[in-house]
């Protein structure tokens, strides 16, 4: 009886259809969670991929864990934010703690052989060499800026998140988003400058 959804229940504005699926999951229909996974797997995967040093396996693992932890705590989701905002926040938190674990592990590796820690564990298949080369360089540059800067650059410049949504995800004011993004770009620019085309460089 109490599994039926209540038709008079107010739907939060701009929550889209995600909210309906969340409600189903909250009422015990775990299969409904699949729709949410399907809709958001690519963005979450890419977010994790960029935050975790461009490591495909790590990103795969992280994506699974992010969705699992979202499923476990979905009862706490009240619909006062977008589901995507909520799950982005989980993904960023997860990535940041995973990064710390990896960083301590990589420190040891680097100390031993002095090699570049980027992508050492999963060499990418050399399909499109040029494209992968740029990706590697961009990723390497991203790995070198602070977590705070990487986070905002990935969100806004790579995932296309708006300033406002980024503010909601990170729990900071929009003005802080602006300044942090600007500082992040300025920190990243010198690392990427050699790869701007001549035309871009003026």
């Amino acid at each position, binding site marked *: 009886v109490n599994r039926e959804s209540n038709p008079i229940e107010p739907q939060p504005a701009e929550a889209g259809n995600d909210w309906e699926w969340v409600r189903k999951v909250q009422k015990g229909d*775990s299969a409904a969670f699949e729709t949410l996974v399907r809709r958001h*797997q690519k963005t979450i995967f890419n977010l994790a991929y960029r935050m975790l040093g461009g490591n495909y396996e790590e990103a795969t693992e992280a994506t*699974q864990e992010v969705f699992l932890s979202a499923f476990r705590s979905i009862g706490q989701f009240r619909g006062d934010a977008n589901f995507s905002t909520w799950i982005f926040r989980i993904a960023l938190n997860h990535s940041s703690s995973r990064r710390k674990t990896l960083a301590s592990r990589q420190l040891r590796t680097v100390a031993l052989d002095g090699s570049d820690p980027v992508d050492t564990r999963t060499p990418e298949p050399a399909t499109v060499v040029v494209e992968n080369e740029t*990706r590697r360089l*961009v990723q390497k540059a991203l790995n070198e800026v602070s977590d705070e800067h990487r986070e905002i650059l990935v969100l806004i410049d790579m995932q296309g998140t708006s300033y406002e949504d980024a503010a909601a995800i990170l729990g900071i004011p929009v003005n802080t988003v602006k300044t942090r993004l600007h500082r992040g770009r300025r920190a990243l620019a010198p690392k990427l400058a050699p790869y701007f085309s001549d035309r871009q460089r003026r």
Partner: protein
Amino acid sequence: MNCNEIQERLSEYVDNRMNAEMSAVIESHLASCADCSEVFAHIAGTVRLLKAEPQVEPPMGLVTRVMAHVNDEPAKQSFWQRLFPSFGLNFSLQISAMVIVGVLVVFLYQKNHYSQPVSKPDEAERLAVHRDRDVPPAEIMELSPGQTLAPGHIPSGGQTQAGGDAAAGFDDRARTAVPVQPDAPDAGAAGRRADREIILRMSAPAGEGDALMAGATTKALSEPQSPAPSRQGLKTLHDARRRAVETGEAQSVWLEVPIEETERIRKEIGTLGTIESETVHRDELAVAASSDKSARIRVTILPPAAERK
């Protein structure tokens, strides 16, 4: 606008988040300033490179894999589903049950806490005392050796009847949450009753208890302004929690907490499970207004709600 101010706004300019007027100011400045133009080229070039990065395709079957994990999760049941697993009780019956339980709780509670000491304790009181005695006295003695910490016993000026060792002990305990023995004379009928009662439903099954405990203790220890925070108190709580898991029965613990620490300790208790109810007989202000230096918190720990095998 000087060059610094211009450069600070270049990201907004690149992102088209500027009104036409401001954009015009930036453009005319860039046309005549080589330094700012260089910064602009860097920011625009960076944004272009980042935006040009293609999205990476997640592995095939990721959704299936996630759902396999999801389906491995224990089914979530509502409180009422757990309480009445197979009867299929309808909602109004559940509400009735809830009202009856509520009335009983209020009845027992009033019996238990508002009756003055009388020659013969009534049933509810005996029940409560029995609960408290379920806590093995040995463990409590270990944690507050020899003495209870009823306020009258806290010495002023560090002076005690029992020498230097005891003075240090008292000093320490006065600052932290300390378990007290509920049935000791000072805490009994003639003493104070709890200022605050918390009923805590443990959130974790027994297996995860240790991790939780480690987490809570570490957290408590890492708080900078609270030297040796409720470590003892927490230990007692964890012991009680362990007993709750082992016996499947509710366990009661008394804590004596400095007034200013009450809120923090309360939060720490909250990390151990879900606070199902909290009754405040005297809030911190009221305790502070009295001559007492500390608040008494009685924590009742209920075993985890997960189905037992």
